[in-house]
């Protein structure tokens, strides 16, 4: 028989909240309890029931423990949003903390510690003080953890009230669970403090080792983990610790085992006796292997850790390679990790068996796994010289199966084998060449071309083979183009006959004239220069002997490895990254993000041409100025007089604006590009903006010098969009202490820069009094989004389908938030990103939009986001792949 709580979820009538309110205030106990259950059910499914706060808290004073716990749970969730009302609960908490029932005393402190409201925290201190000295160990163990909670809220308070000392006293408690929790709390406090708070002395060490035998499995983990920070004084002490910890290897709890392994490995560093070390290695192997019969997720954690352990001490599992053979039904993540460890454990002794396994895996279904298996064979060949020949014969067998991705992967690893053992296995090249036509992956193609070029001398028809690739040279990816260039170069140097000469000529021509890839162009120029001036030198360079590569299967460097081994069983050991690399001490504050979004949305609106009106009304301008994002403190303080039509309006309005509000900005603050410290007092702020289908450079000058500045001129360097000034810069002489702001019309496609697209805009500004100032700006691509970017549904669909899949790109904007679909659509439309359709995909909304930049390049956009949740996924299809990076930059800034 089981519970029937599901009925509490089923009340979704219209007047739910008032109804609940009534029930919560019912005179009948049972009805009140049911009502609280309904509230909790509503809270679970994500409804906002915070408005019932007072009514729920009124149910708190009850004899019924179950009801009390539910109310407490409600408080934990909502106290933060109702801090003023939370104070209502304090009396009951304090009373409960003195209840004769230890379960209630503990419950009260435990819950109070979870409520992060200052007023509650103040009242927590006295009950906590009492509970730390309670007669009942259950209350003490709860109070111990509560000190850590309080430290997280208010560290000073913990130190002032002497809780740290009380906590340290608990290490000597006679109850092992109290000891364990006190240790956990102290370790956590130490983690967030720079001062030494919890240092393990030899005295505490022996206490902890004793407690280890008695406390619960989790307590053992807490104690073992904090012992892992202890540095033994000498080998004898290390041996002593290890001896006391070793029995834990037999524990059924994987966390206890891994934490014990961690300590043993750390202490082994100090132990000098090789017998002891050998013995320990022998003892650690079986428990590690046993972890592989746990749940797959635990196996994964174990395998990631074993990966580290075998790098440090390969002997531990040297004879256990069989346990890492993959089972057919292992999840893919377990298989991949097992494979990695098999490579590490492969040796001359077991390689035959290992190769049979790899070969078996190479015929499985999962493509990623198959590729990794093929690559594993190659890595073994590189690692084990004596086995290389056998590895190659297995690879050749696999190539003969003619499964496309197996062949390509095999060719990639064979290239590495050739580099490792030059002039040894060239006899197989003929076999490789048979698969030439099937290669369609850049890496495989590049590898094959490298092989042909490297051994051009020995391959009779090398020129024919290369020629077949040359036909498609302009369409190839950069990786393949570079290899083709080098290979043709090699061929020509080895066989300087007519055919190769024509080939190299064609390639050099193509690579220097018709490409916009700077790497390729530069390499081609170098070869060209070398070949035309000194062919001998070219030989020395292009055909130089290459250094022999080595096995990369023990990749981690030793200091990182030691760092990771000290973190066995933690996330760090799973990611193979030191904790600093992924843990940020900064707390996440999603609410702040929301506000930020609201800010930018508002400033986004005021960017529209109606800003003059904004400035005119004092109330709304005050609103805008208070909403200016704090993160841009560099905003110019003085408003710039606006030229043109707006200027008149402003001038007129300025006279009515009260004198105490002269700083109301005339528009959104512009980013400062030339700070006054660099500009000898002149500060320049500017931004590209789009107004009524025209691009302007919105630029503002701030004269902080002692003299009048006049004769301003501006020039733009060549850039991707060929932006140039569409007229003269019109700035009237600038008095000291004043500023001027102007909109400079811009024209595009005037001075285009070659090369890969970039958002860099280099600007030079001069005036009659100062030297020329150079500064860099960024071109926001959305300034180019045209008003003609709107597409019909049908043409969008057609365009989407007509573009090949490799024209699709996607990117995550982890910090962007969509707080409302309509607002986002409107906001984007203001920047000429047009809404086409939307659909709902479970809890996420998918928006389809379009935009167009000049020269008719469309962007077909798919935005995926859940309302109110950080993280927007942006996918885009466009015929012009090179613009995609800039496009994402623009979208990200629009969605900020």
């Amino acid at each position, binding site marked *: 028989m089981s519970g029937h709580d599901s009925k509490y979820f089923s009340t979704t009538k219209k007047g739910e909240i008032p109804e609940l309110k009534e029930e919560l205030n019912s005179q009948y106990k049972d009805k009140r309890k049911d009502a609280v259950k309904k509230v909790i059910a509503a809270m*679970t499914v*994500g409804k906002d029931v915070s408005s019932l706060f007072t009514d729920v808290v009124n149910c708190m004073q009850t004899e019924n423990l179950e009801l009390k716990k539910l109310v407490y749970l409600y408080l934990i969730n909502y106290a933060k949003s109702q801090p003023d009302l939370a104070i209502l609960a304090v009396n009951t908490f304090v009373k409960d903390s003195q209840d004769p029932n230890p379960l209630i005393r503990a419950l009260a402190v435990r819950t109070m510690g979870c409520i992060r409201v200052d007023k509650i925290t103040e009242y927590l201190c006295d009950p906590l003080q009492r509970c730390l000295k309670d007669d009942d160990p259950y209350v003490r163990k709860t109070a111990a953890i509560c000190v850590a909670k309080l430290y997280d809220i208010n560290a000073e308070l913990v130190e002032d009230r002497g809780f740290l000392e009380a906590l340290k006293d608990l290490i000597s408690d006679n109850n092992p669970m109290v000891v364990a929790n006190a240790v956990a709390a102290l370790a956590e406090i130490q983690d967030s403090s720079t001062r030494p708070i919890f240092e393990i002395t030899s005295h505490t060490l022996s206490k902890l080792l004793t407690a280890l035998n008695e406390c619960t499995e*989790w307590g053992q983990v807490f104690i073992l983990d904090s012992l892992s920070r202890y540095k033994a004084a000498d080998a004898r002490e290390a041996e002593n610790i290890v001896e006391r910890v070793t029995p834990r290897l037999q524990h059924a709890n994987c966390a206890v085992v891994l934490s014990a392994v961690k300590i043993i490995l750390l202490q082994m560093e100090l132990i000098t006796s090789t017998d002891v070390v050998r013995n320990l290695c022998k003892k650690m192997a079986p*428990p590690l292997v046993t972890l592989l019969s746990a749940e797959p997720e*635990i196996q994964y954690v174990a395998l990631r850790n074993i990966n580290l352990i075998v790098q440090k001490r390969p002997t531990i599992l040297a004879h256990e390679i069989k346990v890492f053979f993959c089972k057919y039904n292992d999840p893919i993540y377990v298989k991949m990790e097992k494979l990695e460890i098999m490579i590490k454990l492969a040796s001359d002794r077991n390689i035959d068996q290992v190769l049979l396994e790899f070969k078996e895996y190479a015929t499985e279904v999962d493509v990623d796994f198959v590729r990794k298996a093929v690559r594993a064979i190659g890595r073994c060949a590189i690692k084990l010289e004596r086995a290389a020949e056998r590895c190659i014969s297995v690879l050749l067998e696999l190539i003969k199966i003619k499964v496309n991705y197996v062949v390509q992967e095999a060719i990639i690893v064979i290239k590495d084998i050739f580099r490792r053992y030059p002039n040894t296995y060239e006899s197989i090249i003929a076999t490789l060449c048979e698969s030439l036509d099937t290669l369609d992956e850049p890496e495989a193609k590049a590898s094959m071309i490298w092989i042909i070029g490297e051994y051009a001398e020995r391959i009779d028809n090398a020129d024919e083979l290369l020629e077949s690739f040359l036909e498609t040279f302009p369409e190839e990816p950069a990786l393949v183009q570079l290899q083709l260039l080098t290979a043709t170069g090699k061929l020509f140097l080895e066989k300087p006959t007519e055919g190769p000469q024509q080939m190299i000529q064609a390639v050099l021509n193509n690579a220097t004239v018709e490409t916009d890839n700077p790497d390729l162009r530069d390499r081609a120029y170098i070869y060209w220069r070398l070949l035309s001036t000194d062919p001998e030198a070219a030989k020395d360079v292009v055909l130089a002997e290459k250094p022999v590569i080595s096995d990369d299967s023990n990749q981690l460097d030793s200091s990182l490895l030691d760092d990771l081994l000290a973190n066995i069983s933690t996330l760090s050991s799973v990611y193979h990254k030191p904790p600093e690399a992924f843990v940020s001490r900064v707390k996440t504050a999603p609410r702040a993000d929301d506000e930020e979004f609201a800010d930018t949305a508002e400033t986004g609106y005021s960017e529209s041409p109606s800003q003059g009106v904004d400035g005119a009304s004092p109330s709304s301008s005050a609103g805008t100025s208070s909403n200016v994002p704090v993160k841009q403190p560099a905003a110019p303080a003085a408003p710039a007089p606006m030229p043109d039509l707006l200027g008149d309006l402003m001038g007129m309005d300025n006279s009515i604006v009260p004198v105490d509000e002269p700083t109301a900005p005339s528009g959104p603050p512009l980013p400062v590009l030339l700070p006054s410290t660099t500009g000898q007092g002149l500060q320049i702020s500017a931004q590209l903006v789009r107004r009524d289908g025209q691009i302007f450079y919105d630029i503002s000058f701030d004269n902080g010098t002692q003299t009048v500045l006049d004769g301003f001129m501006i020039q733009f360097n060549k850039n991707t969009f060929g932006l140039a000034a569409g007229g003269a810069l019109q700035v009237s002489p600038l008095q000291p202490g004043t500023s001027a702001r102007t909109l400079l019309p811009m024209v595009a496609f005037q001075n285009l820069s070659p090369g890969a697209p970039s958002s860099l805009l280099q600007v030079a500004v001069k005036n009659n009094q100062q030297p020329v100032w150079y500064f860099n700006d960024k071109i926001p691509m959305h300034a180019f989004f045209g008003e003609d970017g709107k597409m019909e549904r049908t043409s969008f669909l057609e365009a989407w389908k007509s573009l090949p899949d490799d024209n699709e790109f996607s990117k995550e904007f*982890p910090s962007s938030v969509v707080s409302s679909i309509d607002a986002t659509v409107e906001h984007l439309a203001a920047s000429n990103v047009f809404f086409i359709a939307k659909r709902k995909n*479970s809890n996420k909304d998918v928006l389809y939009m379009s935009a167009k930049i000049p020269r008719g390049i469309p962007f077909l956009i798919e935005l995926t986001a859940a309302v109110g*949740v950080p993280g927007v996924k942006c996918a885009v299809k466009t015929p012009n792949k090179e613009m995609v990076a800039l496009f994402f930059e623009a979208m990200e800034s629009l969605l900020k």
Partner: protein
Amino acid sequence: MPVAASAIYFLNLRGDVLINRLYRDDVGGNMVDAFRMHIMQTKELGTCPVRQIGGCSFLYMRISNVYIVIVVSSNANVACAFKFVVEAVALFKSYFGGAFDEDAIRNNFVLIYELLDEIMDFGYPQNLSPEILKLYITQEGVRSPFSSKPSDKPVPNATLQVTGAVGWRREGLMYKKNEVFLDIVESVNLLMSSKGSVLRCDVTGKILMKCFLSGMPDLKLGLNDKIGLEKEAQLKSRPAKSGKTIELDDVTFHQCVNLTRFNSEKTVSFVPPDGEFELMKYRITEGVNLPFRVLPTIKELGRTRMEINVKVKSVFGAKMFALGVVVKVPVPKQTAKTSFQTTSGKAKYNASIDSLVWKIRKFPGQTEATMSAEVELISTMGEKKSWNRPPIQMEFQVPMFTASGLRVRFLKVWEKSGYNTVEWVRYITRAGSYEIRC
């Protein structure tokens, strides 16, 4: 830092939150949306159980139709976190009598909230022993744990027991008849090559115990393992008895077993929890008796026909028999027609798992059975990639047989009242992952 979780979520397969509990303030309340968006709704699901998104790490497991997701933002102890989930699920199962799924969670959400509050504090796992928690966390609507037990009232010193040195057994138990049931359950894992050589073979065994004992008994278990016997002989200074001994590769014990004592004396001594629990697990790789041999021959005749012949031999004692024997022989997806001949049992083609399934209800020892099948395939054009043959898989149970040869030599019970105990021992061997490549 041994923190295991900042928040825990129970989600159904659609991603709806069934239960959530925030333990720490360092993760946002809506992180589960990130999980839904970046893991559940992408191809990532199932590719890796530990993922980092933004500043948070997500550790997740699927149990029946529920995802349990742990969110952390610090360098948490992952092993601890996963083990906590496993143990918590076991605890819930013990509370609501068996199933753990979406319905069970909805039906018991109040209880689960209460338990979640109790078993983890600020991200640190506390006592998860069902036996002890049931002393003071009880709910109407759930299976009443004490209805059949002598003392029905909540024990006043529950708190001492939660934190006590014997944190898994309550005091004051009384039974009229003192009984202990021991089940030795072994899973044989085998990977055999198509040529019949054993690539990998091991036995993972566990000893399950059901105790109905009064008071605070001390138990001692003796097995026929080599090291234990040698140590015993050494302590009693007499030569070890001859007879079959086995070598355990590794053993792990329930937290009730005194590990220090095991380490020094090699004896398994413990104060058992009341009721059912898993006393120990062990692993053996040497000297495994395989209960079955499988000899497959598969011939591909052209592109549209296959002949499959599988012979299964039982190699355990003639007086014993295996139950529920199932042999699954994979066939290509484009199988159209099958026909069978079997010497015993029934065979049929199961299209949903692309296998021929041959079932034999009862399989006596020292006998053999064969199945021959003809398979016709739909010819497909341009099928370049040859069929990758997944291994043949086998399921079975052999009662009163241990693949390892492990035997219980004795189980001694001491209690200060000096009562007599009745002990029952059963053995059973099952197929773990029993795979034969073909």
